[in-house]
């Protein structure tokens, strides 16, 4: 998916860390209003954007807000008067935005947010896991997870395309430090190419005294007639439409990824990515940068005679359940590695994969491991060992399907 564009007219690769890639992505999208509050490990994104604005490389309004709650309120209102808006955050910042996340999705605003995944306290920890964004999965935002820095940049550009077609906000998530602070070669598309892909934002309605409208009024559960006697949606219909838009956005995401591939040579036509899944009996399922270790682990398992493959989730909301069930149809064991926990249950990814398999005809046993919380290092060997353990439990008929196992010292 990340092969180099052969057109030869794009600038050469640059060494970029994930945060720089996200900021350059936002700049290439010609964002018009940026509001952000510093938080580790997102801070370099807000710094880079302020630098672009102060150098007049990006003609945007940059609002140095006093909190993340305000950052998203600024983006929300700026979007309502027709501006393309961007913010970035991590961890507690995202948690602090929680209320506004609901409001932005409920107002159907195409705001794009970079979430640099970081653990959430207590206790304090600034390193990576995905608890922050997973905790926001029910707010109505599209959630994309990048595997590497090229995907961060590419996802940013696709995010605006998707957001502005679906009228849904998009969160581009990537692992703190592992990607945010690690440099790798990234092909940066030219501004012209991005302009061809992404037209200027055309809002469906803007706040204007010429045609006064009142956004987000108190709304009753049932439909209600307006002044002309036309029956208008109730709260429940409006919420249904949000759900329907998320469900249908799968097609827009695929189309945006495919069109991106045609222009830039890196195709993202599916919400999933696969590695050696064609004949796989054992699937390792991950999300985000853990993919790199998962691929190494699967290849190692193959060398040892196990037919292993990797299924990665590029998009977590909307959940590509049907595609997942199809991809896992022939597997006898699915091992899901989660960098998050839905406390009192199991890893969120595993939980949803199990639900996707139900009634699909797939018969795989599913094993869940919680790994890498708070920046705990995860090596390919750990993943391969966990898979081998699950496999031997399965063969002994002793695979626990209820509790996630934690790869830690307790």
């Amino acid at each position, binding site marked *: 998916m990340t092969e180099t564009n052969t057109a030869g007219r794009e600038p050469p690769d640059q060494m970029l860390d994930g945060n720089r890639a996200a900021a350059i992505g936002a700049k290439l999208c010609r964002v*018009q209003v940026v*509001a952000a509050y510093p938080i580790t490990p997102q801070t370099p994104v807000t710094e880079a954007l302020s630098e672009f604005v102060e150098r007049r490389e990006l003609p945007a309004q940059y609002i140095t807000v006093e909190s993340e*709650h305000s950052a998203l*309120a*600024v983006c929300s209102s*700026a979007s309502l008067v027709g501006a393309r808006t961007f913010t970035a955050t991590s961890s507690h910042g995202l948690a602090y935005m929680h209320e506004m996340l609901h*409001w932005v999705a409920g107002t159907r605003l195409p705001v794009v947010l970079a979430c640099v995944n970081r653990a959430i306290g207590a206790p304090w920890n600034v390193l990576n896991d995905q608890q922050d964004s997973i905790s926001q999965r029910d707010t109505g935002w599209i959630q994309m997870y990048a595997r590497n820095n090229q995907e961060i940049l590419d996802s940013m550009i696709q995010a605006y395309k998707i957001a502005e077609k679906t009228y849904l906000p998009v969160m581009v998530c990537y692992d703190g430090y592992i990607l945010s602070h690690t440099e790798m070669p990234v092909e940066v598309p030219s501004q012209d190419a991005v302009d061809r892909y992404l037209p200027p934002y055309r809002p469906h309605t803007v706040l204007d005294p010429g045609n006064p409208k009142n956004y987000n009024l108190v709304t009753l559960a049932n439909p*209600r007639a307006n002044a002309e006697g036309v029956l208008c949606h109730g709260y429940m219909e409006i919420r249904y439409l949000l759900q329907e838009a998320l469900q249908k956005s799968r097609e827009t995401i695929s189309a945006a990824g495919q069109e991106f591939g045609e222009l830039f040579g890196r195709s993202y036509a599916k919400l999933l990515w696969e590695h050696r899944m064609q004949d796989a009996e054992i699937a390792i399922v991950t999300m985000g940068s853990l993919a790199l270790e998962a691929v190494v682990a699967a290849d190692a398992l193959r060398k040892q005679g196990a037919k292993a493959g990797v299924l990665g989730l590029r998009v977590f909301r909307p959940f590509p359940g049907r595609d997942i069930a199809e991809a896992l149809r022939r597997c006898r064991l699915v091992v899901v590695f989660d960098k998050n926990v839905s406390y009192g249950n199991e890893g969120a990814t595993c939980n949803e994969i199990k639900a996707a398999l139900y009634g699909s005809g797939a018969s795989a046993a599913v094993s869940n491991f919680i790994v890498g919380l708070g920046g705990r290092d995860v090596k390919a060997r750990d993943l391969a060992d966990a898979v081998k353990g699950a496999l031997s439990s399965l063969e002994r008929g002793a695979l626990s399907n209820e509790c996630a196992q934690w790869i830690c010292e307790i």
Partner: protein
Amino acid sequence: MSQVNAVSLTEKEYLLPGNRLCPGCALSLAYRHILKALDGRAIITVPASCLTVLHGMYPVTSVTVPCVNTPFASVAASAAGLVAGLKAVGRTDLTVVAVAGDGGTHDIGIQALSGAAERHDDFIYICYDNEGYMNTGNQRSGSSPLGAISGTTPILGKRQHQKDIVAIMEAHAVPYVATANASYPLDLYQKVRKAMSMVGLRFIHVYSPCPPGWGFPFSATIRIGELAVQTGWNVLYEVENGVFQLTAGSESVARKGNPTHVREFLTAQGRFSNVTEETVQELQDWVTAKWQRYLERARSS
């Protein structure tokens, strides 16, 4: 700027007849004049408040100005976003106005308001102050006065004095702060007009008596507002680029030199029915000291 009077006030209405506010609510009178002053050249943002009630229920609204409702803590940030967005798309003909109650201003919204003031964001912020969380049914706020009975100070009354939000905003060195009162709508109108002609964060505090929350008859709203001014409880003034002046009713009280005893204001309302003589005296002392400070400022500027 020529003074507006009852004859010269624009007849155009932006607030339609029939809304969901309580009878006798001072906010509807104040908001009517605020909108008249803005003359349709504004975008409004409103947090959770009685004003949300005034704006009505989807899909109908009683106002004819564009408005975005925003969460409780975020009205000043929402206004900052409107300003930034309008600038980004090249619209320079509109004034952005945030209108919030005392809960949304003195308490949950103060962080965003302070941030916007510090950044010199270019909008008008209007706080209509009914001295409590009236939209949720009368609980104490940072603006509730000492002795006031509320849902969360049900027997003893509030034990602390109210927060001086106007002084807090003045300390942010914003170009314009003003106080107004729904019982003096032309003074309010004038202040909104003046604020419109300025750049930066302009803060207007509007005193807004609440019949059910304060416990007085619907018909007494204007009188209660006037009593607040005549006793010095609510002082009408403006500070324009650092220059202080008393206005309207407060200017007359200063000129005549006869503030009414605060007891007249207190006994007209149910919320002070439990105050002791000591508290009445404490409130009178508080009002007197405050009034003296304003008088001295008026004299020295």
